[in-house]
């Protein structure tokens, strides 16, 4: 019986590649998420706002996407969009920063991201300025405590899945034993 062993260098290479791929963040902020405000009027314009993830966690990245539309739903690309995250109880502004089309993947939208503040209730104000039009829309969100990934559970589940596949594909032997005659 000859045992098939995966070379350690291959394991390191594959593991390294996976680590690299999982650790990589997109170059630009990517949209998506849950719609918090849908086509709410601000003067002659309408604002749609997405929050990603829908339930932000303290310390983890929050992503906000804003679409500014004209009355006929065509996108407005030369407005100034500024957002402010205010603690719901104290009224203190925790985060204040612009959302721009330069930061976004979809250049029809204004996007920005930032780390979520500590746990609690917050109001997010989106201010729109274009020529002499000024206006604001607001939505509320609750920042949850950060849930750290339990790598031990992830590891056990992954090993379980790999073992199940190996058992199915390789028969009783997990090491994929095959007879020497197989090489002839």
């Amino acid at each position, binding site marked *: 019986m000859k045992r098939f062993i*995966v070379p350690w260098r291959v394991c390191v290479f594959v593991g390294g590649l996976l680590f*690299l*791929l999982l650790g990589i963040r997109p170059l630009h902020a*990517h949209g998506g998420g*849950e719609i918090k405000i849908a086509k709410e009027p601000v003067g002659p314009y309408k604002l*749609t706002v997405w929050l990603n993830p829908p339930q932000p966690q303290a310390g983890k990245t929050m992503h906000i996407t804003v679409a500014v539309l004209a009355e006929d739903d065509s996108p407005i690309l030369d407005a100034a969009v500024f957002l402010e995250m205010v603690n719901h109880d104290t009224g203190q502004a925790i985060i204040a920063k612009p959302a721009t089309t330069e930061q976004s*993947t979809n250049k029809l939208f204004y996007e920005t991201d930032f780390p979520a503040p500590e746990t609690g209730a917050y109001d997010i104000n989106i201010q729109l300025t274009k020529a002499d039009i000024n206006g604001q829309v607001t939505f509320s969100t609750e920042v949850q405590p950060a849930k750290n990934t339990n790598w031990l559970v992830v590891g056990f589940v992954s090993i379980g899945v790999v073992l199940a596949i190996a058992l199915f594909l390789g*028969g009783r032997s997990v090491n994929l034993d*095959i007879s020497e005659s197989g090489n002839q």
Partner: protein
Amino acid sequence: MDPVLKAILSSWDWRVDVIIILAVSGSLYMMGWGRLRKRTASLPQLSHRQNRRSPNRLVVSWRLAAYLSGLFFIALALLSPIDVLGGQLFYFHMIQHLLLIMIAPPLLMVANPMPFLLWGLPTRWRRRLGSGLGRLLHRKSTFRRRLRAATTPGIVWMVWAVALIGWHDPNAYNAALSMEWVHDLEHLSFFLTGMLFWWHVTGAGPRIHKHISPIGRIAFLLSAIPLNMMIGVALAFAGEPIYTYYTAVPRIGSLSVIDDQRVGGFIMWVPGSMMYIIAVLILASQLLQGEESKPALPESEWAGDEALKAPGIRK
């Protein structure tokens, strides 16, 4: 240039993970193709019929072109404005799925990637991996037997159908648009089931299944059309928006949500089905060419009295 058009054309999602995978697999294939070409250049050139099992037939330029085109279409589907605007326009999303299920997989599989990717590796790695694969896929190995049982044409068709129907369910579709990881999972499952489907059609390596005759491959391809067509027709003729996510997002241009859905359904129905029909026509033409290249029967075989009485019956 119109600023909206300019914004659309500059909406590229430079995903480093996708770029790395495409660059690594493209480089490996090109290196492997180059090495194999060098090795086979000294082999004598054989006639088309003699050449059927020759390495000369494996290392041909059209395979390289097909593989690189397959990677190009994956890049187009996942990095270009087609991906970015898929969240606003349903028909852009359908074009993206078409590229991932019906365009990229056949181009990659027809290029028979396995031997080229192996030959693209450094010699030591190639030998080790090759010998490992040789053991894993040996005729007597359990792995091969189980893999073969798990990927029969019937099972592959079922998995492909479940992925196609499942991801067009409104809840699954809306979830894919709201959560990026679900969206990636959707694309990965479409691409992988597409690769499995076209594995049987193209007969690419590793060849662990029973040889499917050209007629069998044509039947397999034709079996994909009704399901594809049904989903496309259902979307094209639906009276109201099925995917509610699009009702809340800003529109681009004057296309309403329902018209967008109709265009998307039409794309899935007509161009989507056409891809399979084109493949059927290619296989049918190969089948007919094979008939043409057979030596003609001598006149006595078909013009004799006996043959005219009962054609096809030999003494």
